[in-house]
């Protein structure tokens, strides 16, 4: 795997530093109920309306594992090409906080449900493999709200007990761009699988970022700092840049880096110390005696494997091989499941090449402008397909198609109808075109003479005139052919 041009290095004086990054991504499992209780998990509900006695840790309440969440975690593991552990153990991570009703979080420590796997990133200068260390299931905590009252903190337990997957990468990432690609790829895989909606605004996906620096060429890792709970890719990238530079400055200044947990201040765009290694919590992990070790059979895993849809890497390969797309095009089209579904729906009945260009070009630009997701596209896949067929069979020109497309964006109309209503049908009747062309030549006798005497550049002028006179409806190919003959 080459990495030359895009290598991300920090230069100070005569030294070059490489940045080493590992991510702990917390992905909320897509599930209607919580990891160990039957409470709902809907986002944005009134505070403390989705809380069971188990979530609020009432005396004598016991956790019961939600099988669906286990399936979701295993599916994600399969999507990460990871080892599925047939036996895993839930541990208690003990600490006190007002939004942690049990006084411990049920998590997996020594024996996670998913072991080592990998994620492939498509970087501008080639593919890069990022190792996955593990994936484990754990409960989310509640939410402390400090700004509603000057003296009191409010606690919302709706999130308490919601299932999270913590996905830990190996320290394989080397730049903010790779982090961007990694998060997007992870998100894409989970959205394909339906195991996490990846909605960063709603907190369904957030990450702790481990950053260290080392002199280029060094084999040893530097001392790392962990930046806690960053909830957007942009902030992750900014935090990494700030943190890496801070560490380089310290080293250049002859100082050492303290292993510590830091917070990213999104307003000041800087990281600052939250607690040092010495102050780190002693979580007193031990197996949760309320839960038996989680054991899954080979059949259970095989059944889940059979439910796994085609994932982005495989889809990309198929798109390239079957549809002759370029890797660039394929990457864009498979990047999320909705886009690839849209694409595949369009090409069911229409030309692949045109569809690719129209989706990546016109459609994406138009959606971008309106700030819409592909799922919110005013133009359905079916109607885009029709539009493409109208171009392909010569009913309308590419130029007219753009006009039609614009109208379709205003509301999902059948392009056929737009063409008919507005009389935009392409003129492809040779006789009609000949008449048109004769008239243009007639009106521009002097230019025709110039052309004939060798000023061939004027050919474009005539094409333009014909198109103008036809109101853009003349079939450009036929116009070319006939013009050549007539001139």
């Amino acid at each position, binding site marked *: 795997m080459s990495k030359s041009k895009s290598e991300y290095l920090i230069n100070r004086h005569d030294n070059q530093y490489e940045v080493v990054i590992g991510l702990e991504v917390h992905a909320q499992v897509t599930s209607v109920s919580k990891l160990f209780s039957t409470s709902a998990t809907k986002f944005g509900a009134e505070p403390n309306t989705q809380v069971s006695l188990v979530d609020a840790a009432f*005396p*004598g*309440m016991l956790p019961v594992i939600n099988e669906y969440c286990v399936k979701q975690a295993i599916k994600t593991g399969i999507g990460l090409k990871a080892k599925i552990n047939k036996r895993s153990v839930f541990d208690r991570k*003990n600490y*006190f906080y007002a939004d942690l009703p*049990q006084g411990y979080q049920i998590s997996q420590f020594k024996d996670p449900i998913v072991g080592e796997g990998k994620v492939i990133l498509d970087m501008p200068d080639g593919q890069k493999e990022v190792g996955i260390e593990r994936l484990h299931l754990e409960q989310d905590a509640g939410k402390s709200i400090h700004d509603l009252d000057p003296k009191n903190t409010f606690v919302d337990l709706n999130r308490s007990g919601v299932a999270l997957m913590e996905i830990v990468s190996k320290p394989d990432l080397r730049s903010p761009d790779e982090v961007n690609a990694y998060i997007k790829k992870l998100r894409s895989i989970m959205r394909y699988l339906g195991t996490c909606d990846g909605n960063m605004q709603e907190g369904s996906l957030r990450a702790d970022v481990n950053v260290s620096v080392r002199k280029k060429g060094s084999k040893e890792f530097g001392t790392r700092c962990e930046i806690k709970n960053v909830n957007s890719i942009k902030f992750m990238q900014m935090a990494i840049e700030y943190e890496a530079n801070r560490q380089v400055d310290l080293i250049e200044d002859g100082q050492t880096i303290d292993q510590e947990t830091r917070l990213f201040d999104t307003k000041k765009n800087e990281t600052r110390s939250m607690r040092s290694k010495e102050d780190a919590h002693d979580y*007193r992990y031990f197996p949760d*005696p309320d839960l038996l070790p989680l054991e899954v059979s080979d059949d259970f895993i095989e059944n889940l494997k059979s439910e796994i849809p085609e994932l982005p890497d495989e889809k990309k390969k198929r798109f390239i091989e079957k549809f002759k797309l370029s890797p660039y095009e394929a990457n864009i089209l498979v990047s999320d499941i909705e886009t690839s579904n849209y694409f595949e729906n369009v090409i069911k009945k229409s030309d692949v090449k045109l569809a690719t260009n129209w989706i990546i070009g016109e459609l994406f630009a138009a959606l971008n402008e309106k700030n819409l997701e592909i799922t919110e596209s005013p133009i359905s896949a079916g109607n885009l397909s029709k539009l493409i067929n109208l171009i392909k069979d010569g009913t309308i020109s590419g130029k007219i198609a753009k006009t039609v497309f614009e109208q379709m964006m205003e509301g999902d109309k059948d392009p056929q109808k737009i063409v008919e209503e507005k009389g935009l049908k392409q003129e492809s009747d040779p006789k009609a075109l000949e008449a048109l062309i004769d008239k243009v030549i007639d009106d521009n006798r002097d230019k025709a003479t110039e052309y004939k005497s060798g000023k061939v550049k004027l050919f474009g002028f005539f094409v333009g005139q014909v198109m103008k006179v036809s109101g853009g409806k003349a079939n450009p190919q036929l116009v070319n052919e006939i013009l050549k003959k007539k001139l």
Partner: protein
Amino acid sequence: MSDITKQSLSELVENIKGKKLSSSEVTKAFVERSEKSKELNAYITEDYANALNKAKKFDEKPNLDLKLPGIPMAVKDLFCTKDLRTTAGSKILNNFVPTYESTVTQNIWNEGAILMGKLNCDEFAMGSSNETSFFGNVQNPIDKNLVPGGSSGGSSSAVAAQLTPITIGTDTGGSIRQPASFTGTVGLKPTYGSCSRYGIVAFASSLDQAGPMAQNVKDCALLQEVISTYDEKDSTSIDFKRNEYSKKLTKDIKGKKIGIPKEYRVDGMPKEIEDLWKKGIEYAKDCGAEIIDISLPHTNYALPTYYIVAPAEASSNLARYDGVKYGFRAEGENLIDMYEKTRSEGFGAEVQRRIMIGTYVLSSGYYDAYYLKAQKVRKLIKNDFDEAYKKVDVILTPSTPSSAFKIGEKTNDPVSMYLNDIFTVPVNLAGLPGISIPAGHDAKGYPLGLQIIGKAFDEQNILNIAYAMEEKINFKNNITDWWIK
């Protein structure tokens, strides 16, 4: 009327079913006796008026097909009871009223029984004398200066004093069997996973088990068949075939092999305990059982293992009592200050001691040496039993190394207090069923118990052997009603 409270559960059930007694008559008798027995301090919360109302309702439309038709019953205050205060013997839950019912108590009410109130216990079931309760110590009806055992001390006292015809306790390291032994009553700790832990205030989750406490073995068997159900709400509940223990109860134990573990002859064991054990062996032989010497080599390590595992789990289980959501809260300057004050004031000394031990043994740097090592030893202890059960059907031991001690005698010596559990603790560590039956008296006239330990899920066998031996022993409890003025 005074006869009623002297009747066993089985007799009361028979009399109610035979319409010789109404639920109201029975409930009234036990309520009246309970009211006259306040000095024992067996109750934390009384619910007599409701009980009498429920009895009246039962009598209006009696369902005599139930197993506990209109039978009044007080239960240990570790079981959450809907709309009735549940304290676990602690200040920190002094004002806690559950909105839910434990599975075990629900099973009991489903069979027609009526709740009379909540019985005293050591705080969070941590204790062997009922002296750690925030609600004061309980007196043993045998003698006013004696502890009733613990942690189910209110339960043992109430059954022995006939304030309730039967009751339930919980047993984490001996908390049913030791108090039964101290009060001349019968107590069964079922196999781990037999009775649901749902709705029981947790002490040590991997050891806690609810069980019946009664005047005799037959009553114990009847209550066990009521409370033991598979429960999806408890992930450690086990779905095995449960017997109608009382119906299958038999005194025919001919040919049963009874193991005598040599390691239970501990140093300094009083001679009268040794004699009791010998007597027990003779009774068993008289019943036609075969006596076989066995070895449980890791017995010596059971107590230290228990006092690592149980506090470790407790330290985590009790973290939820933080003043934030329910229960007692002491105001503080900030969150940490509130936690510290709430927990310092809300928990008693023994609970704090165990939280500290538990926190210590789970701490990084100590985890491997204590908690992990203890888990390994626990496995060895279980293996000892597995080996023994290749040769024998049940194991016979004394229930406790002494008879009931005096109130205050051991409160300043926790280790001596812990030693009380030496014969009962291995059973919890191995998850096995064990029953304590009264088998004799010591020189002072205090009751002594024998313990019969069974294979996992083999409650029927230990009940049968206890039933057969009970008849031979023909124990009579010496209770003078000294507390009734």
